[in-house]
């Protein structure tokens, strides 16, 4: 029995010495630290650089879009966009200008699994959009399949249709990357579906601010390139379930 006891103690000392040489203890402490992560919650506001800079090179366009989102939970964000657009559309047979404001609201869901203190987002979201605008028909051409008397020059109209509204739904895909401190750069694509559209009598809504160009159906697309600033409001600690990590050395 004595012999057995000495054997036991000797093995114990061996096991105690082994971790010391391999420095397993500090590694374990590190894992413990990481398992509690602080997520920052706050408001992110930004501007669409694409719309803002387009006015510099496209004389037919003036526009601005303010974007914002607020983090609700770990994955969900309330998101909204507010904008103004003044766009002249020059089609082959029609030239018209649409001017108006729009608001879009909805949510984003972050699909991206951040690790450590990263705060990047790859989001998919839904929005409801609403626009009030006016349209001016600048000029038009008469389509005549039998131009025996010659093609007529474009007719200057200058007719204005006011008080127009449109509503739509959109699926928004986007990504936002933190470039430094609280500054984010983002890129987003939206697929839109028109659900309500008050057309003027004797004309059509060829461009709806916020919805963009209308097609024959109710389909639309849009994209934005945003720079935004994150205003941290509070922090939440989340405990991540123990991750089994194999020591790298």
């Amino acid at each position, binding site marked *: 029995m004595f012999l057995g006891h000495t054997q036991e103690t000797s093995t114990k000392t061996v096991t105690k010495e082994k971790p010391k040489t391999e420095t397993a203890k500090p590694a374990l402490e590190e894992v413990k630290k990481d398992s509690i992560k602080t997520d920052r919650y706050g408001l992110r506001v930004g501007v669409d650089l694409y719309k803002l800079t387009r006015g510099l090179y496209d004389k037919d366009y003036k526009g601005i879009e303010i974007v914002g989102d607020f983090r609700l939970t770990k994955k969900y964000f309330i998101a909204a966009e507010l904008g103004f657009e003044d766009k002249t559309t020059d089609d082959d*047979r029609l030239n018209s200008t649409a001017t108006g404001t729009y608001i879009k609201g909805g949510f984003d869901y972050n699909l991206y699994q951040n690790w450590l203190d990263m705060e990047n987002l790859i989001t998919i979201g839904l929005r409801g959009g609403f626009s009030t605008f006016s349209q001016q028909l600048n000029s038009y051409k*008469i389509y*005549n399949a039998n131009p025996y008397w010659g093609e007529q020059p474009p007719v200057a109209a200058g007719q204005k249709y006011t008080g127009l509204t449109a509503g739509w739904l959109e699926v928004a895909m986007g990504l936002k990357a933190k470039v430094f401190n609280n500054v984010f750069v983002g890129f987003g694509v939206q697929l839109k579906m028109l659900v309500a559209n008050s057309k003027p009598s004797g004309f059509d809504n060829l461009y709806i601010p916020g919805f963009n160009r209308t097609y024959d159906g109710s389909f639309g697309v849009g994209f934005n390139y945003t720079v935004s600033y994150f205003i941290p409001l509070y922090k939440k600690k989340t405990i991540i379930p123990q991750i089994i990590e194999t020591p790298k050395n």
Partner: protein
Amino acid sequence: MKKIISLLLVFTFGLSSCEKDDICDANTPTTPRLVISFYDINDPSKLRNVNNLMVIGQGKTEGIIFNKSVTDTTKYVTNASTVSVPLRTDTISTTYKFVYNSLSPNPAAINIDVLKIDYTHQNVYVSRACGFKTTFTLAPVNPFVRTDPDGDGNWMQEIFVKTRNIESENETHLEVYF
């Protein structure tokens, strides 16, 4: 992450490339022509085919092309019972010379009647691709004036207005009996 960015870029440019798809479909009803149907004066219920009719606009030397598939002068003549003639969209009247038996070598057999059609017109929105079309309304009083420049009598003996509003080519607007 980079994969997704490039995918989204390709997606956006793919969508922007298909924006110029605005071609006015030929089947879309656009500016209508005036449709004239010819009837037999002896049997008013029966359509009657014209004989080598040439229709020339006032101030024009070439007639309306009725047969696009041929290249000689027969492309200007029709032997049908219905002709469709374009009205001017920049004025409120259009004058045409209707040359009956136009290909006849005997000048006495050729009969020319001149028809001046008076109307109002309005421009109506069609679509983004087609733009606008012009529709016409025949004048309520004296919508047409028939004259006989060659003094051999009118071959168009009776003319009636069938449809005053010219909005489609699927209907007859003027009935001519001869």
